[in-house]
């Protein structure tokens, strides 16, 4: 198929960016979205032009590196998929596709489609852990965990930290991201001893990093490639109130 791509180009954090248009033919419906960008880049390189910079790594939907707005949607229009898993089958011949980096104040653009997501790591550093030193753990089966709780914890723990929830939110809120981690630990007996300190530290850091508040629009859940559920945010709020 033949596509028209409108892509955000920005040299670095200090310069102003703008959209550039590219016509790309020879796209196959078997390709992934990133392979389509690879094709564009190989054409650009052969013309001596600078290729489009974008983050990507595992290309199997689990590392969380990739992410961009595709026609206004984080990771594109198909629910439950990361950009690397988005197939070109979902696009039509002759379509115009608009591609932009995440737009959120806590995620400054580094170059083209690459943004700085280190604010998310900082929240995890603030409290996203259980304080256990290597060697100190009890025998694994000494703590029995209800299967239902463990399964729920898993459903929260599968967050890949891509930032789509923040990008989808009109407030640039990181509540879904933070709540996924808080929920995982809140649901497990191993996480209870420092639950209060954890939730306070993570929420405090989230605010410090400039993420907005949650106003319950649910855009984060709709765009999450791992379909992390909104009720995690309710649990986060409950954990937060209980911590005082």
């Amino acid at each position, binding site marked *: 198929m033949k596509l028209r791509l409108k892509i955000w180009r920005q040299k670095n954090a200090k310069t102003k960016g703008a959209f550039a248009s590219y016509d790309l033919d020879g796209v196959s419906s*078997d390709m992934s979205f990133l392979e389509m960008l690879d*094709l564009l880049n190989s054409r650009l390189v052969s013309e001596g032009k600078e290729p489009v910079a974008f983050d990507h790594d*595992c290309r199997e939907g689990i590392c969380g590196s990739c992410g961009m707005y595709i026609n206004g949607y984080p990771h594109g229009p198909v629910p439950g998929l990361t950009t690397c898993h988005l197939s070109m089958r979902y696009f039509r011949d002759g379509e115009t596709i608009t591609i932009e980096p995440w737009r959120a104040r806590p995620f400054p653009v580094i170059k083209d489609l690459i943004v700085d997501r280190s604010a998310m790591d900082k929240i995890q550093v603030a409290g996203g852990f259980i*304080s256990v030193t290597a060697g100190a753990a009890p025998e694994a089966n000494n703590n029995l965990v209800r299967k239902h709780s463990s399964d729920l914890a898993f459903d929260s723990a599968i967050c890949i930290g891509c930032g789509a929830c923040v990008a989808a939110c009109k407030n640039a809120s990181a509540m879904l991201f933070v709540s996924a981690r808080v929920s995982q630990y809140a649901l497990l007996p191993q996480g209870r001893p420092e639950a209060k300190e954890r939730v306070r530290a993570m929420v405090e850091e989230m605010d410090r990093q400039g993420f907005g508040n949650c106003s319950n629009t649910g855009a984060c859940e709709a765009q999450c490639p791992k379909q992390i559920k909104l009720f995690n945010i309710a649990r986060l709020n409950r954990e937060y109130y209980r911590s005082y």
Partner: protein
Amino acid sequence: MITLNAKIPEGPLEEKWTRYKASSKLVNPANKKKLDIIVIGTGLSGAGAASSLGELGYNVKVFCYQDSPRRAHSVAAQGGINAAKNYKNDGDNVYRLFYDMIKGGDFRAREANVYRIAEVSNQVIDHYTALGVPFAREYGGTLDTRSFGGVQVSRTFYAKGQTGQQCLLGAYSSLNRQIKAGTVKMFPRRDMLELVVIDGKARGIITRNLITGEIERHSAHAVVLATGGYGTVYYLSTLAVNSNASAAWKAYKKGAAFANPSFVQIHPTSIPQLNEFQSKLTLMSESLRNDGRIWVPKKKGDTRPANDIPEEERDYYLERRYPAFGNLVPRDVASRAAKERCDAGYGVGKTGLAVNLDFRDAIKKQGKKSIENKYGNLFDMYKAITGMNPYDEPMQIYPAGHYTMGGLWVDYELMTTIPGLFAIGESNFSDHGANRLGASSLMQAAGDGYFILPVTISSFLSGEIRIPRIPTDGPEFDEAEKSVRERLEKLLSIRGKQSAASFHKRLGKIMWDFCGMTRNEEGLKKAKEMVRALRSEFWSDLTVTGEGNDLNQQLEKAGRVADFLELAELMITDALNRKESCGAHFREESQTPDGEARRIDSEYSYVAAWEYNGENEPILNKEPLKFEFVELKERSYK
């Protein structure tokens, strides 16, 4: 010539690690604060080591090329992590895990190291569970296990098909705790471009800041490589597309021996290549072979849809050839058997390079719900990529380059032949012999990182306590930085016509065709010439757009491909040298009449540790493998 001293402790197998720990030298807490350690890589081994070393009180600096340590490729491991807990009461124990690994590795691993990793496996599970890793559980609240390829017990702990992600996020959380505590400093988006050796000891690294292009110097009393494997040498592989061998390769060129580079595991169950622009192959977990049955049509070139082919016209070739293990034979055996059927013209799919992995019978027997519980996310992933629904029709799968058993040579203390340089996890060679069993990589990476390296490194560091912080302005740092700058400038100044990616693709094809699932002398010799020619073409016709002092993904890629072009030749040299078949290394000249691998213990029961020798052929150093505790046997799964 270097001398290879494996430093294996004396005594019976089951006492070696205990004896080592009882007699190894320690560093007292006050001195630990004065010692700096660099760790490269933040996967299970790197993040585990960094957090453990931080907990012990050392000053740790950690580097990764990704924007966050949480993205290291351990994240993509699917099926599980082994431990000898014997929770299923099926007769498992440390010795059996050790024996399965030795046998699975086709008797090309070091006994003492393998026994030790089996010993610490239980501690790893305890630790991850305490860190909040949500492993699968039974209704009574205890941990569940499942069985995995190549063994007959159920010892694999798992978190659906995302065990690697969950373990990595556990490791990431312990790393974060130490970052907060101030013992660990994290440097993301950095490529290690050179190792700095001072007076024969590893004392630092040169990195490139991938955002600003800045060349940076970092010093330490010891350097730990946790940089993973080199499977991306095949271009198409199950690895992350940016995974690379550069750090290990720089270490090799500075004097660290590289062991068994040709030992590469080709994973049997990956989604086949769909188009020529494909950038990677997605793995479908080996755990699927617990319930899926592998087959091809009995009739050559049968193009009917799989569901239209009646039972009696299906060839369940693994069950036919290996009745004892059936679909659960080890990966190398399953991969070669798939290749054999496809080469003989029985393959399925668009290209004929695929076999069926069928869940029809399992769904009939256990119900769709049960299969969904076990493999739901894998089935969804398969459907998203291929557009085919594995609940209704068989998956199509084909082997893909996956894991490298070869790596930097290390002794019992996980130290390379450069004093002060350690290699852990997939970046070393020591525990998997010529073939790795499923769910053993997470176990080894975590075991090395959390429980082995933090003990063994003190034996080296205890001799360094009088050395003050290493300055970064000495001549060795100057020299290393100069060579890094010169190389980057060279890559930028060729201004040819072909991109680094296009060279990588061509290299991958050569390696896959001639140094992949099966190898022969003629093909390997030809491949060596082809790789050399490709390398000289690279250095005369490469194009890299943009500048060095900027975020430049073309430049990053070019440096990595340049290193792969050298490593590929060493892999071929090693494959040529080893004229036997063993594990994943299948030399066509060395097979039994029924097509199984024929090992030649009298000649090749050694680790091939290659030493860099400038422009000349590398020097082969041999570490003889002594089997004192197990009997060398033919590896049969029939």
